[in-house]
């Protein structure tokens, strides 16, 4: 690629990132603004909204609940996604398209219908509503996204590699671990990220399927209705964003340091 088009692409990526971060860039601005009206001009500096977050146990619970739900849902949906993607890209069998169709169906079903129907099923089976019921719903919702991404990853893997590996006397498991896993790893990471993001942000199913424990989006939904609480929500958003970015940078830092200590080049990476 020529230098000019390369520069153009970098420029585009810069704009794209600004677009992605546009709303979130406003978060800190208004989280430190001492007015409940979220509009320009800014009125003054305060940290009161952050202080207000400290003694709200409901908020802390909701945050922990959400993280637990999102992590579990992401891992489970990705596991199911791997199975479905591998099965439908590597093998042919009867009813394959029908079965895949059913797995993908939650993507087409309006979330509210999943939520209402699910509510009836769960309560009729005699379960009470809890975080577990939310996870069941979220796994169902995230699996199609996971399958869509992972099928991309598994599609068109050259079977010759597998055959070569088996010819060399490797077991199927070793073949899978040594040949296939490295090739689909970007897909697995992408699937985990997407599922995590969907679950962390989902509140239609969470509203219907939550008992007395809430998740963060449900909590935020409630807070956003009251003008006095809006700045607290923005402070919370700022904090979560800062923590996410902080964790990411720290992890990267330690990963690199760890690699250097081992005397490995930083070129080697998980991905």
């Amino acid at each position, binding site marked *: 690629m020529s230098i000019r088009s390369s520069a153009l692409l970098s420029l585009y990526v810069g704009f794209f990132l600004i677009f992605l971060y546009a709303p979130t860039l406003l978060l800190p601005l208004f989280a430190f603004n001492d007015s409940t*009206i979220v509009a320009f001009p800014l009125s003054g500096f305060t940290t009161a909204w952050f202080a207000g977050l400290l003694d709200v146990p409901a908020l802390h619970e909701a945050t922990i609940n959400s993280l637990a739900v999102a992590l579990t849902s992401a891992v489970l949906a990705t596991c199911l996604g791997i199975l479905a993607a591998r099965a439908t890209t590597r093998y042919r069998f009867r009813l394959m398209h029908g079965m895949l169709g059913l797995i993908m169906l939650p993507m087409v079903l309006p979330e509210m219908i999943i939520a209402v129907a699910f509510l009836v099923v769960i309560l009729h089976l005699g379960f009470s509503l809890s975080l577990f019921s939310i996870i069941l719903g979220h796994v169902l919702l995230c699996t199609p996204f996971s399958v869509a991404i992972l099928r991309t990853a598994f599609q068109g893997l050259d079977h010759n590699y597998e055959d070569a590996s088996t010819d060399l006397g490797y077991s199927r498991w070793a073949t899978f671990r040594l040949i296939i896993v490295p090739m689909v790893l970007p897909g697995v990471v992408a699937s985990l990220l997407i599922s995590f993001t969907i679950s962390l942000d989902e509140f239609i199913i969470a509203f219907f399927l939550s008992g007395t424990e809430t998740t963060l989006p449900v909590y935020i939904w*409630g807070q956003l209705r009251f*003008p006095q609480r809006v700045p607290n929500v923005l402070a919370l958003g700022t904090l979560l964003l800062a923590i996410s970015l902080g964790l990411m940078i720290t992890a990267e830092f330690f990963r690199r340091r760890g690699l250097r200590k081992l005397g490995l080049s930083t070129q080697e990476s998980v991905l």
Partner: protein
Amino acid sequence: MQRMIRNGLAGIAAVIIGSTAGLAEGSDLVVLDWSGFDDEGFYQGYLEKHGTPPSYSFFGEEEEAFKKLRAGFAADVAHPCSQSISKWHEAGLLEPLQIDRIERWDDVNANMKEAFNFDGNYYMLPVDWGTTAIAYMPDRIQAEDVETLQIFLDPDYAQQISLPDNVDDVYALAFLATGVSDWTTASEDDFARASAWLRDAHRNVRTYWRDGAELSQLLASGEVSIAWAWNETPTTMRLDGVNVGYNRSPVEGSSTWFCGYVDLAGGPGDESLVYDFFNAWLEARSAEYIVNEWGYGHGNQAAVDALGSDVLDAAGLGAVSVPILFQSPMDNSLREKMIAEFELIKTGF
């Protein structure tokens, strides 16, 4: 192998349930409420007596709560508004209140409690209410312009108007604007006229507001200048130093809405907790708290009156001399028609 996967799933589930469960322990009171109503200022008496707040399960809107309860979700009390009670009652979700266990029953607003007297049994304990009237920004709108509800039809204010995305408040406006102040006696013609009025008003609407925070934002940012609004909005906006007008006395009148607690049939908790909760809500300090901090009215009429007309007028809750459309329960078939019609109007039909 599938069994192993299932065991795995169950294992993860067990960890999660185990780590976070605060699930219905027998002695607990489960309150199905609007998000945000777990504010401890409302039930100090309950906290003092029991030490812990009730367990709250939140809903975003009443219909969602209704679906959840009908599906079999177990809660002890819930907090619907006046227009839903008949529906909930017909669906068999409600138990009659034992009014002899409610200490301040006689102080409760008579209009509101009598609205849900079905065959001699009371079904709702009114706790919060508010008014719906014209909120406007005085820097952009003259006070004399909002002396009539017809301002909502004025093409000069096209795109500067916001109406509630709430069928009851919107039809209260339309009925008042077309000369009906008691919708329980509205005829087919009245309904048709109100709908036609609303259709005209729709052309001027910038957006339908869905909650107080959204409306404050719309008014303060200059997006709209006039809104059919709850009194809560001007009250909280003034606390933040924004100059906003609120006129409850346009010639055609304004409206009042109310919500309250119901005792759900077959709740898992102890009935005595239910009444401790009700009694805590009816205390004078709860009334004072909700009026001052939330800008809402309170079901304990005696306690509200004791706050004095200055406080009430400032909060948009005082007495006015124009017709008031009190949002009392109406015929279900008329309400169904209102709902269907409002959806068509919102879509531009």
